[in-house]
């Protein structure tokens, strides 16, 4: 309980106070606050309990690097657990809840257990302990004690969208380096995108005391930004670059924020010619005993809280530093009117200028000293400071700022494979070798002084486009010198020195891992979980691997870093899924007569289109309805919505020659007004579609691919037209959804068609089987093909899509007296199985050729080349050991789809198999029937085979695949 709002200062809008709640308590903040700054301003101490030991934890940092402040947040647009307080913009009415600690983070019962259990819960604790009898015995209790809250199960209304873009220059980071870069690109004519995760540009200029070109840093930044946007530059705020990929491609997540909170998210997929990496750095903490107590913050965050939000971390601060930046914090705190902090500097002889400046501001400076312990169980009360000589002093305080050096944010370069290399001078990993057309500038390079940062940003931009601009100047008040690395305090108990605060990894765990030979940094990470939290070890990785280096006597550079992988920060699954969820997952394609199907109780299945599987109006259960539907087709007439059936017009003087190159059958002899069934292959001879082709006239053919291939066949035609036969005079028009198609099937189909008033002769002789006619039906233009998938007299009547429902209704109205029924997909498919007609994709697979389905004769007769022809005579296709399509009749038990055909002589499994059952059903007329692909099946008609399905073996007889009307008499009535 130490933070509070300062009287003045910050970039918050004090004229816009907000109310929000934290664990039900009503608190106040201002526009411009983050949830973290507002909580700190309200004196929040314990914000949660740690993952493993349930130790109390407080706000630790201002931004994305905070390992502690994970909260559940509800705003006007939705609820989410596990958000980082520093990344949540405060809005009026926001509700925040802690997600760890039970019953509350302040009073946590688990903590009283873990306090005693902690000594046993070392690295690898789960692996070593919870393995008997198995993990599931412990899982429920462990999951309850761990984690960062639960989702509420509700679907939020947040907007999700994707945007694709390209640019000449992507500048990542709108701090001083990035701004110097866009300033230098002014007038270059380059299309520049400037991205920053904060809600305003400026970076550290927003909170540090700095002058650029004779103005305050922020005035300079505002000027650069307004010039940039005036010139048409794209500024993306609230946007994280989450991943960098080959070809300078980036993914970015933009938060869309309004007065209610997070309105939505936009994922950017952006490709850039040039990239300026100006991602800055984050402060590193120092590792000492009880370094995780609430009230402990990163030093740079203490400055940011003061400068950006007007919030002090405490009344009496102690700064623990190993470099010059700690002095900046001391000066900032003193300037804010707070009591001058103690500075505990690990170094013996820092620069005189810094020490003098701090002393002049009232600070006491302890040189060559370190913090050896902290007192205060739920909040820091005092630090024990050990000097070089070993003497200890206790300094009362209510906040500690840690300046352990800075860690450059090299993630994005590392995503692309740039190797982070250890730099002794800055005691940090930097990426000196960058991907092609990348440039880095600012703190990400290890630069520590503003003048250097600005010059680097300027220089990077000038490499891309030399505009001759002048370099922005900043007078260096206090130079930031080197870092004297101290990875772990020399005194204190390593079992209470926390390296990774989010995953509760301690210095002692890393040493244990070293003793147990988990010395590779990748093993260290997985064994101890160092850096595996949602903060991805931003504050902990470097300290951890340095302690490992020390424990194994290696250089830090040799130990190296773990692999950096996207995303840079947690990305919501919803943002990635975007519209591809719920109904947006796949568009529901509705047939023109959809409402009529609904009205008659259709049970829909998705076949790429929503198609009735069966109709509730035909029976109360599926099997009964299907039987009614099948009987109607065999005995009277069935009405089937065939609208999704593919329809592709192939037109032009070369239409006939062109289409003849695709189908296995000879189409050069197909006369006007006639229809022919055939299959088509890829050039490897494998069947990929079947259907009928109608010759409307010599220059116009109508191909009817299967519903599922309607688009791909059109694309297939078009590809060959463009790439192989560009000289052919032919045009391809996919017209599938222009036409609704209603099939009338059954002995009374002609009577029913006659009732629909065709204006052309439909008599048996004038319109025979496999013929095509055009005219008017019920007064609208129609295309009618007399073809059959059921083995009955059948007409497929196509009318413009807008008349589809009217035709369906008219057919049922007129057919009522004849016993017409609506027919669903399942009945339709069983009817075709009774006739042994192929169902593409069921009865064929990725190896089936026309020869395997009994079309060898058709192939042999065709002289002209067609796609797939040559491949059919390749040895493996002509081997005589092919799986061929045949019929099956059961001998003892019903045949099941998918059943494996056992090789000859086997009656138990495991054993070799020679094929499988491809279709099976119960036919009202023919009993249990099936089709199967069986090796050399066509020459084995009459033989018996054993079938294995679902654990049992049954026997069946191979037959010719025709089970109803083998002489096709019904087709020709």
């Amino acid at each position, binding site marked *: 309980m130490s933070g509070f709002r300062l009287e003045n200062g910050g970039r918050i809008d004090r004229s816009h106070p907000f109310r929000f709640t934290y664990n039900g308590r009503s608190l106040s903040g201002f526009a411009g606050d983050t949830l973290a700054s507002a909580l700190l301003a309200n004196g929040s101490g314990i914000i949660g309990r740690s993952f493993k030991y349930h130790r109390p934890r407080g706000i630790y940092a201002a931004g994305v690097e905070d390992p502690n402040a994970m909260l559940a947040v509800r705003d006007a647009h939705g609820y989410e657990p596990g958000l980082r307080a520093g990344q949540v913009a405060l809005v009026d009415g926001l509700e925040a809840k802690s997600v760890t600690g039970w019953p509350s983070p302040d009073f946590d019962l688990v903590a009283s257990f873990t306090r005693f259990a902690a000594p046993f819960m070392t690295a690898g604790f789960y692996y070593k302990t919870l393995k008997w009898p198995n993990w599931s015995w412990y899982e429920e209790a462990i999951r309850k004690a761990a984690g960062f809250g639960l989702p509420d199960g509700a679907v939020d209304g947040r907007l999700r969208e994707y945007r694709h873009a390209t640019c000449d220059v992507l500048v990542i980071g709108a701090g001083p380096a990035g701004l110097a870069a866009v300033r230098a690109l002014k007038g270059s004519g380059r299309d520049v995108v400037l991205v920053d995760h904060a809600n305003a540009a400026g970076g550290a200029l927003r909170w540090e005391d700095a002058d650029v070109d004779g103005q305050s840093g922020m005035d300079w930044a505002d000027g650069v930004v307004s010039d940039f946007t005036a010139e048409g530059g794209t500024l993306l705020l609230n946007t994280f670059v989450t991943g960098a990929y080959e070809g300078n491609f980036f993914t970015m997540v933009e938060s869309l924020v309004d007065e209610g909170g997070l309105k939505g998210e936009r994922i950017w997929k952006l490709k850039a010619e040039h990239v300026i990496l100006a991602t800055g750095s984050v402060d590193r903490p120092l590792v000492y005993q009880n370094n995780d107590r609430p009230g402990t913050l990163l030093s740079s965050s203490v400055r940011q809280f003061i400068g950006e939000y007007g919030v002090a971390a405490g009344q009496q601060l102690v700064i623990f530093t190993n470099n010059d930046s700690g002095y900046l914090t001391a000066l900032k705190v003193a300037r804010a009117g707070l009591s001058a902090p103690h500075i505990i500097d690990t170094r013996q002889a820092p620069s005189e200028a810094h020490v003098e400046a701090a002393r002049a501001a009232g600070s006491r400076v302890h040189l060559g000293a370190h913090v050896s312990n902290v007192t205060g169980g739920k909040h820091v009360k005092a630090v024990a400071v050990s000097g070089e000589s070993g003497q200890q002093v206790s300094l009362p305080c209510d906040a500690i700022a840690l300046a352990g050096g800075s860690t450059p944010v090299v993630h994005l370069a590392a995503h692309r494979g740039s190797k982070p290399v250890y730099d002794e001078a800055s005691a940090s990993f930097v990426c000196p070798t960058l991907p092609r057309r990348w440039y880095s500038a600012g703190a990400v390079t290890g630069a520590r002084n503003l003048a250097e940062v600005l010059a680097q940003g300027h220089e990077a931009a000038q490499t891309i486009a030399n505009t001759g601009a002048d370099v922005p100047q900043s007078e260096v008040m206090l130079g930031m010198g080197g870092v004297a690395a101290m990875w772990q305090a020399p005194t204190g108990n390593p079992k209470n020195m926390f390296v990774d605060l989010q995953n509760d990894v301690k210095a002692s765990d890393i040493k244990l891992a070293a003793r147990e030979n988990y010395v590779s940094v990748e093993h260290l990470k997985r064994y101890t979980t160092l850096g595996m939290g949602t903060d991805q070890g931003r504050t902990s990785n470097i300290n951890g691997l340095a302690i490992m280096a020390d424990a194994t006597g290696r250089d830090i550079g040799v130990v190296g870093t773990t692999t950096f992988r996207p995303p840079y920060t947690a990305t919501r699954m919803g943002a990635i899924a975007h519209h591809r969820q719920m109904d947006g997952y796949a568009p529901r394609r509705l047939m023109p007569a959809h409402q009529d199907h609904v009205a008659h109780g259709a049970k829909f299945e998705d076949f790429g289109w929503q198609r009735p599987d069966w109709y509730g109006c035909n029976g109360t259960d599926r099997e009964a309805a299907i039987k009614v539907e099948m009987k109607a087709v065999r005995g009277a007439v069935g009405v089937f919505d065939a609208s999704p059936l593919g329809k592709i017009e192939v037109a032009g003087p070369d239409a006939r020659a062109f289409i003849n190159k695709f189908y296995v059958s000879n189409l050069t002899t197909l006369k006007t007004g006639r229809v022919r069934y055939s299959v088509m292959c890829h050039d490897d001879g494998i069947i990929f579609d079947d259907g009928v082709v109608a010759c409307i006239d010599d220059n116009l053919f109508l191909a009817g691919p299967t519903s599922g291939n309607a688009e791909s066949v059109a694309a297939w035609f078009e590809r060959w037209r*463009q790439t192989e036969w*560009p000289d052919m005079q032919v045009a391809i028009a996919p017209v599938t959804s222009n036409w609704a198609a209603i099939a009338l099937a059954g002995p009374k189909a002609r009577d029913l068609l006659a009732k629909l008033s065709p204006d052309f002769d439909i008599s048996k002789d004038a319109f025979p089987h496999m013929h095509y006619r055009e005219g008017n039906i019920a007064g609208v233009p129609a295309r009618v093909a007399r073809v059959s998938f059921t083995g009955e007299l059948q007409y497929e009547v196509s009318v413009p899509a807008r008349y589809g429902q009217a035709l369906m209704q008219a057919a049922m109205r007129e057919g009522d007296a004849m016993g017409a029924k609506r027919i669903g997909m399942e009945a339709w498919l069983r009817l075709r199985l009774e006739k042994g007609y192929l169902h593409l994709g069921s009865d064929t697979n990725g190896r089936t050729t026309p020869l395997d389905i009994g079309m060898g004769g058709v192939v042999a007769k065709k002289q002209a080349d067609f796609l797939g022809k040559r*491949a059919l*005579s390749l040895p493996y296709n002509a081997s005589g050991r092919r799986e061929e399509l045949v019929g099956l009749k059961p001998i003892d038990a019903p045949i099941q789809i998918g059943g494996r055909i056992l090789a000859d002589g086997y009656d138990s499994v495991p054993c070799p198999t020679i094929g499988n059952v491809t279709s099976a059903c119960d036919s009202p007329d023919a009993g249990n029937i099936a089709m199967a692909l069986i090796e050399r099946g066509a020459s084995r008609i009459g033989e018996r085979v054993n079938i294995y399905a679902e654990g049992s073996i049954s026997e069946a007889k191979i037959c010719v695949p025709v089970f109803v009307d083998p002489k096709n008499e019904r087709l020709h009535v």
Partner: protein
Amino acid sequence: MIVITCPYCQEIRHEEELTYGGEAEIIRPLEPEKASDDEWTEYLYFRTNPKGVHQEQWCCSGGCGQWFKVARDTVSHEVLEVTTFNMKLKTGGPA
């Protein structure tokens, strides 16, 4: 992410708007019946699969629908050359 400016409609197309069509310059023998089994198998199945410059076919399927040719570096994903289907690529190809 591959971004290509379509040589026909001149629009910048992102990967999702494009369809990949495998290696370019695969010639279908003009007289298939005269091709030997080896020649036909070579045409059907054998591809260069280089680490480096690859000549390939792409279709502006989300746009104008035209097929075109691209030389792409399979290591960096960099698109080195784009041309219409009736032209030969100058980059890549058999050494």
